[in-house]
């Protein structure tokens, strides 16, 4: 941002040194362009650090493109959300910027209300049965993806092709498989937004009511009143607890005293019958529960537990330690249920009128209906599905490596999906004709250049916003899904200083309590292993699969996140203070600095 408290125009932001040509990494429609300059400069764009704090790998833009379409169309074309259309996207210097498309014409909004009532009303009325169907649809999409074969191109087609009179070839199958994979991604994101906007709208209605009636009510109390009892997102972590118990029952828990390195753990387990029995339990947990990304799931780089057992192994050891100390690991479901009803009853009793009590009952009822989807969809989409998706794309990467297009499997992610499509044509044409493809002479050098470019883009600090900020943020989806408010924009423009010596941060109070300790700044998943017991985790955003590190830390501070952020939810689960959405935590704090995190006030003081 500039010194006069304004965000720069997207057209004024310089290309970082050595990053010239970054535009080639992305499809043409993703770029700020002179043809749309007037339109683009007239809007406020903010960097989607919640989902994409790092530059977008060219192939990984597919997740953004999928929700770009799906979020928008469910608002604008399916449910006719009265005041909001979609969320627009652009890429600048590799970073994703998004902009809400709110409607302001009251007459038009009024016309949309009737359609919305009819369409959204149908979903709300039939939510449970539609959600049951949704789960089947989602599992169907996942099953389709799993079943997809990525064939190689043989020297000679199998004789069966002739005998069956098939009329199609491996080249065709390969092309089809690629198209199916891309379609499958779009299909999953359509399902994601079939329910999400409605779910959040209902939840946020209840949230708004609570804030109006009780301005000081903590966000976590509102969430507690609606939160489900059996939350799928906690299930992977529950599996680690189960595996810790199994290890003790089988008497192989001592393996984890010796090592938490996954290969070493497995080798030691394989050496004994009891260990083999434990490995069978591990296998039982893995599908589907270890399809659990260590990141947001939006990046191919965010590997899942099933790809790398490091995080689960650390988690299992932590739980073994706790079990040995006699700790109760199970979430007290009955107590959670009682607490949720107690809160609702006590707040209701404090309301000024009976009409308000009725309003609370109606809104709470709907919020509780929609909340299981809100809480659980991430597991199906970003974790389970995306884990399989990135690995399926890697199968294509390996194919390309075999044909000399790339040096490494993951090089494929440095091409955007249309380039991969083009490379496939290159490959099958050359295979069909029997001549050399251009790819092996074209892509290796370009991928190498892009890797260098990408590292430079990572070093760049994107401004949090671009263009003209609105005076007041009212667009509901910006607030609901990204936690962007008038206050947070002001905070970006004029960062508040808290803390005793004027050094500090402020954000949303995500989880109550106060803690002091040394900071550990984590900006990528690979650094998770560096965390020491008793440190305060400072990171752009956390994801549920980081759960195993939470028993080790004292508090969490995130750059991005609002009332529904994972960091807030998980910290409440572990009773740790959290301040979320500080904007600049990872840039302001240095590892080792002593912090005081006040999860009640939403402030972080840097003590030295």
């Amino acid at each position, binding site marked *: 941002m500039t010194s006069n408290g304004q965000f720069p125009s997207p057209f004024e932001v310089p290309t970082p040194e050595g990053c010239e040509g970054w535009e080639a990494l992305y499809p043409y429609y993703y770029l700020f362009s002179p043809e749309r300059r007037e339109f683009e400069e007239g809007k406020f764009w903010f960097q989607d650090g919640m989902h994409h704090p790092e530059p977008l790998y060219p192939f990984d833009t597919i997740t953004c493109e999928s929700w770009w379409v799906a979020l928008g169309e469910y608002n604008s074309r399916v449910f006719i*959300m*009265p*005041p909001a259309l979609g969320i627009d996207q652009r890429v600048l210097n590799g970073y994703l910027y998004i902009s809400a498309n709110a409607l302001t014409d009251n007459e038009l909004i009024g016309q949309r*209300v009737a359609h*919305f*009532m009819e369409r*959204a*009303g149908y979903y*709300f009325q039939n939510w449970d049965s539609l959600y049951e169907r949704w789960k089947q649809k989602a599992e169907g999409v996942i099953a389709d993806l799993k079943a997809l074969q990525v064939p190689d191109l043989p020297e000679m087609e199998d004789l069966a092709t002739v005998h069956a009179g098939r009329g199609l070839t491996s080249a065709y199958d390969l092309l089809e498989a690629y198209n199916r994979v891309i379609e499958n991604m779009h299909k999953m994101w359509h399902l994601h937004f079939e329910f999400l906007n409605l779910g959040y*709208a*209902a939840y*946020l*209605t209840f*949230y*708004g*009511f609570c*804030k*109006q009636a*009780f*301005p*000081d*009510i*903590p*966000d976590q*109390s509102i969430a507690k009143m609606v939160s489900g009892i059996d939350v799928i997102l906690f299930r992977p972590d529950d599996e680690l607890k189960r595996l810790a118990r199994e290890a003790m029952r089988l008497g192989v828990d001592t393996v984890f005293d010796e090592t938490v390195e996954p290969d070493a753990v497995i080798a030691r387990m394989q050496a004994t019958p009891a260990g083999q029995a434990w490995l069978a339990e591990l296998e039982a947990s893995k599908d589907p529960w270890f399809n659990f990304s260590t990141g947001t799931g939006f990046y191919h780089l965010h590997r899942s537990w099933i790809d790398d057992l490091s995080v689960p192994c650390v988690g299992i050891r932590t739980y073994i330690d706790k079990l040995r100390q006699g700790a109760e690991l199970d979430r007290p479901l009955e107590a959670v249920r009682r607490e949720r009803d107690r*809160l609702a009853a*006590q*707040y209701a009793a*404090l*309301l*000024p*009128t009976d*009409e*308000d009590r*009725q*309003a609370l009952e*109606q*809104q709470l*009822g*709907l919020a509780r209906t929609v909340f299981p989807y809100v809480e659980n969809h991430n597991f199906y989409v970003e974790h389970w599905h995306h884990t399989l998706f990135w690995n399926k794309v890697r199968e294509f990467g390996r194919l390309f490596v075999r044909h000399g297009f790339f040096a490494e499997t993951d090089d494929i992610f440095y091409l955007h999906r249309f380039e991969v499509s083009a490379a496939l044509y290159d490959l099958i044409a050359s295979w069909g004709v029997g001549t050399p493809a251009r790819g092996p002479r074209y892509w290796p050098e370009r991928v190498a250049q892009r890797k260098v470019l990408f590292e430079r883009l990572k070093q760049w600090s994107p401004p949090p916003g671009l263009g003209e900020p609105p005076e*007041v*943020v*009212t*667009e*509901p989806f910006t*607030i609901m899904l990204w936690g962007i408010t*008038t*206050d*947070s924009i002001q*905070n970006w423009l004029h960062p508040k200083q808290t803390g005793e010596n004027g050094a500090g941060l*402020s*954000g*949303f*109070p995500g989880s*109550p309590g106060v803690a002091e300790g040394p900071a550990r700044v984590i900006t990528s998943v690979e650094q998770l292993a560096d965390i020491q017991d008793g440190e305060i985790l400072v990171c752009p955003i956390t994801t549920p699969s980081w759960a195993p590190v939470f028993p080790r830390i004292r508090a969490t501070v995130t750059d991005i996140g609002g*009332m529904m952020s994972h960091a807030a939810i998980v910290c409440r689960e572990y009773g740790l203070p959290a301040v979320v*959405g500080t904007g600049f935590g990872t840039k302001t704090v240095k590892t080792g600095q002593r912090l005081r995190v*006040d999860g*009640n*006030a939403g402030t972080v003081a840097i003590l030295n």
Partner: protein
Amino acid sequence: MSDEPYILWFEHCDHAQIARVGGKNAGLGAMLRAGVRVPPGFAITTDAYADFLCHSASREQLQHWLDHLDPDDLPALDQASRAIRQWMSQIPIPPPVERAIRMAYERLAGECGVPDLPVAVRSSATAEDLPDASFAGQQDTTLWVRGASSVMLRTAICWSSLFTPRAIAYRMKMGYGHGRVLISVGVQKMVNARTAGVMFTLNPANGDRSTIAIEASWGLGETVVAGMVTPDNFLVDRICHAILRRTASPKLLEYVPDPVGQRAEMREVPAERQQCLCLSDAEVLELAVLGNCIEGHYRRPMDIEWAIDADLPFPANVMTLQTRPETVWSRQPPRRVVTPQPGALDYVVANLLAGVRTRKA
């Protein structure tokens, strides 16, 4: 106790006795009965005051000062007030009244095991604490009073607080007879307050009844009540029993007992304590428990003075001193949170159209 007309111990005071013991004493009694810790003590009833006035046979004397007084003539009011209060503090208290007060004080000192027990002597007006008659000018409090004779003197001064210029003018303007407004006095063990302040069983800033707001400063609570310091501020979520906010303020002055004299004195807070929070989290939460209990008793938002006693262990050291109904938010007619809608979907639409309310971080 009923055979003693002049003294009513706090545990026997309640709101039925408000005409005899005044609002403050009645409130203390009600709290004790509700199980809320307050320092022990007794009320000197309005009968004592009435007999004092009669016994001195000096209604004529009073009339002499008050007749023909113009309530808008401030210098004359001031002069009459001074003359009356001077006179009232010197005329003898009727022996039966004096005897009753002395016996009660000695019993209290004995029960506390402290000879010359320091007590607070407060006026307890029969009107001022009523929810709809909250007017200033009838308060008189003396702290750290030691010994029966001193208690006696301060009692007479409390009585004479009915004759401040403001109180006289108020009665004249309202048409109340001077002799018909009575006053009670409360005598209560001094809390040796390390920290004290006020607490509201709602957030006075926004009326949120799910919270308890606490203002606290070092020493006795008068600095907070009189606005002489900027107190530390705490906001407690009473539903989840969690502290939402702690704000430390520079607390420059404290009112503490003078170890020599029979009084408290104002002094500067040593620099190292000025910026520290003057309550621990446990004390804040214990206060909130008391606040919840008090609101539960009165079934309405309350305004509570409290203290932490330096001589007692936690949690016995957490005491409430005074309670009165909260008047600012409670006087407003109940206002609906939302415009009623036929169903949940209508609320969703209304909310989407209004923009989403967000919390200021």
